[in-house]
């Protein structure tokens, strides 16, 4: 038990730290990296919750593939550093306040007595709980439709990505050489602020 609790706190801190990093770091590159660390911490939490397959999927698919895609695009697009004080007035100031309010509400809901079942450690489970075996069985029997729909969705997304990103005739394509991040100055417009 104690080991679990320590692990929980460590993973929790990692997750929170990663999340804060995503939000507060100015450079998008760093944000991506922060998210990756967040995802790994989350995978650890999944393990704590006996979701073995999902933890592996998280690391391999999410952190491994999706985030790499993200890195590619950040490199391509360039992502300038944003100015220190985010312009956009009221929304930017009120945003965190709204989020805080929401957090407080949810905490009250969870910790309050109405959701009594949350106070337990959970049901007794078999040792194959969360194993790929079990998940696979579920996917191919009870949740077959969802499974197929998800595949379809993936197909659509792939096609969509190709359509969105293809070259159009007649348009100039000022593609910056990979790695060079100064081409953005011609693109980002008048609101650009020097680093």
């Amino acid at each position, binding site marked *: 038990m104690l080991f679990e609790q320590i692990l929980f706190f460590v993973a929790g801190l990692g997750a929170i730290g990663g999340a*804060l990093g995503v939000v507060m770091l100015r450079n998008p590159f760093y944000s991506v990296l922060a998210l990756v660390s967040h995802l790994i911490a989350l995978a650890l939490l999944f393990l*704590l919750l006996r979701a073995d397959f999902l933890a592996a999927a998280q690391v391999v698919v999410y952190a491994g593939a999706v985030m790499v895609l*993200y890195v590619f695009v950040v490199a391509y*697009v360039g992502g300038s550093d944003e100015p220190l004080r985010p312009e956009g007035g009221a929304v930017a100031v009120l945003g965190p306040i709204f989020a805080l309010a929401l957090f407080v509400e949810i905490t009250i809901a969870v910790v309050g007595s109405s959701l009594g*079942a949350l106070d337990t450690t959970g049901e007794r489970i078999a040792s194959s709980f969360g194993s790929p075996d079990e998940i696979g069985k579920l*996917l191919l029997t009870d949740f077959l439709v*969802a499974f197929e729909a*998800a595949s379809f969705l993936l197909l659509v997304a792939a096609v969509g990505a190709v359509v969105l990103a293809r070259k159009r005739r007649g*348009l100039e394509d000022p*593609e910056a050489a990979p790695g060079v991040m100064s081409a953005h100055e011609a693109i980002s417009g008048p609101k650009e602020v020097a680093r």
Partner: protein
Amino acid sequence: MNTSWFVVLSAFIFCIGAAGVLTRRSPLVILLCLELMLNAGNLALIAFSRMLGNQDGQVFALIVMVVAACEVVIGLGIIVAMYRRRLPIDVDAMSELRG
């Protein structure tokens, strides 16, 4: 381990993600914050699945992961298209849907 701890943690991460969506100007970072929120949701799902001893929650979370991946693909595709057309990568400048 109390399930409620996991749920509170999930709420916290969710709210951090929400604050990030509202605060940041670059669409890339906004997408990242969206990922944060989706992951927070996943965490909550799995926590509940553990609480109930039912693996349906985990399957749900798996599908959510698939959806998140698709969404990232499309979102990044849009950003690439914006970049190609030399539009500023800045959410505040994109206000043509103004009513």
